[in-house]
């Protein structure tokens, strides 16, 4: 079974802290994604990566950065956490293939910034 693992289920951080959310997948997928989920807004794409050291901005990249030094690991960084970044963060991966492939999700990290 494909496994996507996020480092924490719940996280509480203080305003202004630098926060790292880690995601690891074990199926050698090329594509990895970070989404943010808020009530009534669905899932919004923050950043995605299609290869090691490659990244592209999604719909809401402001206040975030990412790092992909190894194929299996994709990190989301909140440079200076703010209360409006309190949210559920979901990591996903999917293989690159011609045609369609499904995405596999981690269990989510619920981040609270106080």
């Amino acid at each position, binding site marked *: 079974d494909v496994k*996507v693992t996020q480092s924490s289920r719940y996280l509480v951080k203080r305003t202004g802290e630098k926060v790292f959310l880690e995601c690891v997948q074990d199926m050698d997928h090329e594509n990895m994604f970070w989404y943010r989920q808020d009530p009534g*807004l669905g899932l919004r794409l923050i950043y995605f990566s299609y290869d090691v050291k490659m990244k592209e901005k999604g719909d809401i990249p402001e206040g975030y950065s990412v790092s992909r030094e190894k194929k299996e690991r994709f990190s989301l960084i909140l440079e200076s956490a703010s209360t409006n970044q309190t949210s559920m963060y979901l990591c996903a991966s999917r293989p690159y293939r011609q045609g369609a492939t499904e995405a596999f999700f981690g269990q989510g990290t619920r981040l609270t910034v106080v």
Partner: protein
Amino acid sequence: SQQGEEDPQALSIQEGENATMNCSYKTSINNLQWYRQNSGRGLVHLILIRSNEREKHSGRLRVTLDTSKKSSSLLITASRAADTASYFCATDWLQGAQKLVFGQGTRLTINP
């Protein structure tokens, strides 16, 4: 944003009834996928329909796709309490870089 829209936002039915959820999107797509999310968890893939397909079945799930109307529907037949979850559609853009764009989701509640 190219995010799709789902309708209704919330649906409550009795166990055994059928549930229908709709999804509309804005751009040309390669395929459309449906996912389920149990409360507070990650998403799980349910079914994928390609842009050249009109209907697809998987167990109690039936998905239709109308590319001329840029819409899709998910039908769950003979619903069970375990089907209680949020359901999301996701589109793969025709000219996108393999990123999935999700709708806002439908919250389905099955009452025993």
